[in-house]
């Protein structure tokens, strides 16, 4: 990887993409990983009709949950309370971090071990805690590698796919005391396992994300392969889980189809090693498990997406990552370029709500609208349609009547030059006399055409009006086809 890294700022999206596109190693890593993941998923869904049927069920479940969201959250609250799980509500990242800090101080915890949690990335937990002298230790192997290297996740399921085993060998040899240099992946994993064991054993607080919440039973459902999620939620005295308010489903049996959709779409596995259903802290007679379990429900812009019927579909997402695996843009520019917590198509449709449309204005344009993301999404989110709506919202501020539903930063991508250009275009094409004049002038002024136009001419020849306009060329073309003959040939009968 080149010394210069893509920045964690969606406003730098275009520069970031250029940086990655120029790096052959990064490009090979992303391409290879995406091909691998798409092939594995395809093997899990050999029958298109069977997939469609299961996806419809997944979509129904998520839509039903969102349609009943306020009631389900209330029911969840009651059940969690009965189960002895503490519930905290956080409107934004700062509030969520304050809750973490408060709990860490109350338990006098200098470190927290973390299972994989994208929402904790979203609130910048590690950074915030570090500022208060509390170390958050990532324990997912991929996240651990990135943390040692001071890097960011480039994929929501496989965070370190942009690293080669040689990269990891170097990172481990440099940062883990006593670890020699090895490129043997089994040995590397063994080194990681050894290094983290003691952290699990001694940490007072374990942090995790949540894949699904069940209102009916007051349960937190976690899906994982490594066992670090189980360790983080079992060994430390206190377990703090954080997730978005949209993650709740009505009943426990809804988990069965969602679980299979998630694992098969994400990594192309029929199942993960662990499905971990947590419904309470250690009971008086039990010998292990955390003595306290806390759940932080984060809004952070989700209720904004909820307000508008179309954007609400964004919240159906179960974070499988299939849309990015199948995105031709993501496969080339990788997850780091987006500069947001959630990259790829899902990142493009969720980030404008979590941040605002102003800073994320370029993300909805990072799509060829080929439709692959919408096709593979296991809960039927019409991603291409939402990308179009966000592009639209980026260009036009909402009419006052609908101001209530306006997105933060709406109309931010509007550019005066572009607006003027389109107005002029409309004028020319609506008035034939003006157009004729334009067509006469343009070829005569062709020498004045600017040779370098940013963006376009970086990889293409400059555009220049032809010596003679199409009309002129047609008019003088050949006597065989008079204008009348042409008209006759093109008339319907």
């Amino acid at each position, binding site marked *: 990887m080149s010394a210069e890294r893509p920045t964690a700022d969606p406003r730098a999206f275009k520069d970031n993409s250029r940086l990655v596109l120029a790096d052959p190693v990064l490009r090979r890593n992303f391409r290879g990983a995406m091909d691998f993941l798409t092939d594995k998923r395809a093997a899990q869904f050999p029958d298109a009709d069977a997939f469609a049927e299961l996806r419809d069920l997944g979509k*129904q479940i998520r839509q039903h949950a969102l349609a009943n969201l306020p009631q389900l959250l209330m029911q969840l609250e009651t059940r969690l309370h009965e189960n002895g799980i503490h519930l905290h509500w956080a409107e934004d990242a700062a509030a969520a971090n304050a809750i973490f800090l408060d709990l860490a101080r109350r338990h006098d915890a200098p470190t927290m071990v973390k299972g994989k949690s994208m929402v904790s990335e979203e609130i910048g937990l590690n950074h915030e805690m570090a500022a208060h002298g509390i170390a958050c230790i990532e324990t997912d192997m991929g996240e651990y590698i990135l943390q040692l290297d001071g890097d960011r996740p480039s994929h929501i399921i496989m965070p370190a796919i942009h690293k080669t085993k040689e990269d990891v060998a170097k990172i481990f040899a440099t940062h883990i005391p006593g670890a020699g240099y090895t490129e043997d992946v089994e040995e590397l994993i*063994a080194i990681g396992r050894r290094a983290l064991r003691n952290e699990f054993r001694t940490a007072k607080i374990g942090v995790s994300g949540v894949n699904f919440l069940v209102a009916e039973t007051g349960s937190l459902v976690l899906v994982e392969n490594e*066992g670090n999620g*189980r*360790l983080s939620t079992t060994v430390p005295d206190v377990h703090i889980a954080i997730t978005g308010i949209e993650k709740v489903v009505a009943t426990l049996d*809804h988990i*069965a189809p969602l679980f299979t959709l998630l694992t098969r779409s994400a990594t192309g596995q029929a199942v993960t*090693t662990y499905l971990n259903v947590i*419904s309470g802290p250690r009971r008086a007679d039990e010998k292990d498990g955390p003595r306290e379990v806390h759940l932080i429900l984060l809004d952070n812009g989700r209720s904004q997406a909820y*307000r508008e019927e179309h954007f609400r579909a964004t919240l159906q997402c179960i974070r499988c990552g299939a849309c990015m695996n199948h995105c031709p843009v993501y496969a080339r520019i990788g997850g780091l370029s987006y500069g947001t917590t959630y990259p790829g198509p899902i990142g493009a449709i969720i980030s404008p709500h979590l941040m605002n449309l102003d800073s994320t204005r370029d993300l909805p344009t990072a799509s060829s609208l080929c439709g692959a993301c919408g096709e593979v999404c296991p809960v039927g989110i019409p991603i291409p349609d939402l990308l179009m709506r966000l592009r639209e919202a980026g260009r036009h501020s909402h009419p006052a009547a609908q101001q209530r539903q306006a997105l933060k930063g709406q109309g931010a991508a509007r550019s005066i030059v572009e607006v003027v250009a389109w107005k002029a275009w409309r004028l020319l094409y609506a008035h034939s006399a003006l157009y004729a004049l334009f067509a006469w002038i343009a070829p005569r002024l062709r020498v004045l055409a600017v040779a370098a136009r940013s963006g376009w001419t970086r990889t293409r020849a400059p555009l220049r009006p032809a010596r003679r306009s199409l009309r002129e060329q047609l008019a003088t073309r050949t006597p065989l086809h008079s204008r009348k003959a042409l008209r006759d040939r093109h008339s319907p009968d």
Partner: protein
Amino acid sequence: MNPADNARARSAILARLREAAPADTGTAPGVAAYYGRLATPERSSIATRFAERARSWRAEVVDCTAHNWAEALARIVAAKGIRHLLAGRTTPLAAGIAALAPATSLHWYDETMETFKPVLFDQIDAGISTTRGGIADTGSLIVWPDADEPRTLSLVPPIHIAVLHAHTLHETLYAAMQAQRWAGQLPTNALLVTGPSKTADIQRLLVYGAHGPKQLVILLLHGEAGA
């Protein structure tokens, strides 16, 4: 955190959602109907299909009966060189385990994890647990830890040995949840365990033995229900 802040955040979030929630809350998803339509594979017995699946996740499946499982366990313990085995004292397995060769020291999970940590993390080679059933569709074990068989029994030791009765197998997770009435009686922690822990986080290369057990051995007991 300040309870007043929490209450304020709660009502603000719920108010925003309530204001926007659709009047039509839709119909309940047809989960039962979907699973009702799924055809049960008939090519072989449920136990055979379970074992095939479980092995595909690199679990070792040892076929045995209610009468000879303890001998099978003794062979595994010997073959793997297990010197410290951890188990729950009052499970139905206890008598069979206690009969193991004296070369293996048996540890019962009798104290709380806090005081047991040095033994649990540094000494124990394998933990043996009962299961509540299995899922043929995916080769998964249903593990419900409790006071006698704590959560860490099947998590911290490098080898997990699980005893599964063939008559407790179900076709799908959904079928198991329904038949065993999960929703009404979930323990503090309920698990599906499918194979040993694994990761493909380094260059997509699959490695077994990430943070959880490196090996999973399933003693699959065939025979009459309750035998």
